[in-house]
């Protein structure tokens, strides 16, 4: 998997550092502050296999998933897995039906109680919103946190919002991926608010355009 992921995605050092920062903020900050008790396996933390699933390699994903289920079983029967990104949440959820992964899978967003102020347009994660049914949960969390959520029928609605194009970038077409990301960032920017992305890939894909047009993208 490591060699495969290198072929498709080579993160910049800045992105790696930022990813670790986010992970520390989620684990040591948001989750602990919300009173959640959890364990962490450090170097033994396994990969979800999400890349195989999203590339349509279902047989390989199933095979990898069986090993993963066995790993969790061997670690004392993990009962609950907290995920920190939508791709992992979706992949592990699929493994529950595909290979009988027993652990409950819960995105960290459902556990935290953040405080946020300001007006935001939401760029949904396609997986959270469309596949995992969390669209309204995320809006409720934002409002409870103190944010004003700005909606637009074309740009952020259930039927009007579109993907950032990032998943096309590696395996299919970087040009097309970039064009879609530019289009998405421009649409969000026209709303004149801060933008909060619930997908790390989408933030990475859109940040160049957002920066050029002066949109705050979090």
């Amino acid at each position, binding site marked *: 998997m490591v060699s495969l992921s290198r072929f498709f995605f080579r993160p910049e050092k800045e992105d790696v550092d930022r990813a670790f920062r986010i992970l520390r903020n989620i684990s040591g900050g948001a989750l602990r502050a919300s009173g959640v008790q959890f364990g962490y396996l450090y170097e033994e933390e396994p990969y979800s296999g999400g890349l195989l699933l999203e590339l349509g390699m279902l047989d390989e994903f199933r095979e990898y998933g069986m090993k993963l289920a066995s790993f969790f079983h061997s670690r004392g029967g993990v009962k609950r897995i907290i995920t920190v990104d939508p791709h992992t949440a979706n992949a592990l959820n699929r493994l529950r039906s595909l290979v009988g992964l027993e652990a409950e899978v819960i995105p960290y967003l459902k556990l935290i109680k953040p405080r946020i102020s300001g007006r935001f347009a939401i760029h949904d994660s396609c997986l959270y919103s469309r596949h995992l049914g969390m669209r309204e949960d995320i809006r409720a969390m934002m409002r409870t946190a103190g944010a004003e959520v700005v909606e637009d*029928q*074309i740009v952020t609605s259930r039927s009007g919002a*579109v993907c950032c*194009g990032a998943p096309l970038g590696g395996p299919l077409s970087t040009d*097309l991926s970039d*064009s*879609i990301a530019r289009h998405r960032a421009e649409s969000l920017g026209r709303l004149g608010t801060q933008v909060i992305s619930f997908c790390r890939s989408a933030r990475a894909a859109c940040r160049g355009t957002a920066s050029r047009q002066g949109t705050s993208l979090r």
Partner: protein
Amino acid sequence: MMGGQWDVAIERALQNNIPRVEQILSENPYILDLAREIRETKLAVLEHLDDYVQKTIRAVERTGGRAYLARDAEEARKIVDDIIGERKRVVFSKSNVAYEVGLREHLVSRGLDAWETDLGEYLIQLTGEPPAHIVFPPALHMPKEAVGDLLNRFLNGAVNSGSTHEEMVAAVRSFLMEKYMKAQVGITGANAVAADTGSVALLENEGNIRMDTVVPEVHIAITGIDKIVPTLHDAMKELIVQAAYGGLYPPSYINISSGPSSTADIELKRVSPATGPREFHVILLDNGRSMANRDPGLREALLCIKCGRCYFSCPVYRVMGASWGRPALRRPPHGRDVVRHY
């Protein structure tokens, strides 16, 4: 990437469609229930598709029509050729299956005078380009100014890029009216086909389908076997759902054709034809659909009711327009093409 003219056209289409569909669904919540019911109904048909095809054929023939199962595009074109015979003048309503089998181009290449009567599809015929959308409007990629320029060339200067929308529509109507009145054959698709009555159900707003199905002496409906539903009641539900997601609700016209025209107004003796067509033909096209139906993943594609709403939620379509996915983007799924393109 298309850019320029496409960006203007797609932005106008989004602004016109998305809020309208949301409003229709919120004001008529029963439509969501109908959509769920239609999905289950179509799944049940696909479980026994061969049986439903035979049932539909028998029902069409009970009402005095003729029904055919075409294995592929070539067979479909041959059936149409045999029905048309020596006739020369044909009008088409927009049909994705006719497009799939290349029917209009085939008839024109044989020297027939064949015209699309859906306004958007008529524009597509004039440009010679593939349609930019499967339903509405096929000429989505053309802003009003481009339409005016096109019509100016083909309608002897009747309108131009500065003409109003109304003037352009009136000019096309005037041209097509002569074609309707002289047509010997009307070719339509079908939004749904009822297996119990053999009825072809068609949805429209322009009135062209009503003309195509009534004025010529022969009506040919060509459609995929995936359009079969068990009953006429199911067909009506499908039309309602499709109209709503198309953003045009209620539809101006719903057409149901069951057999050739007839009357029993003199001594209750059934006489055919009456005012409408003397011949009614239904061609059910397979062209890989049965093969797709055997695959659990591809079967999902056969549930599509072709409302075209998904185009507006597709980021690739928004950016690239009609230049992506040709021909799979706008062609119903069938067999090897599905495997190759999807």
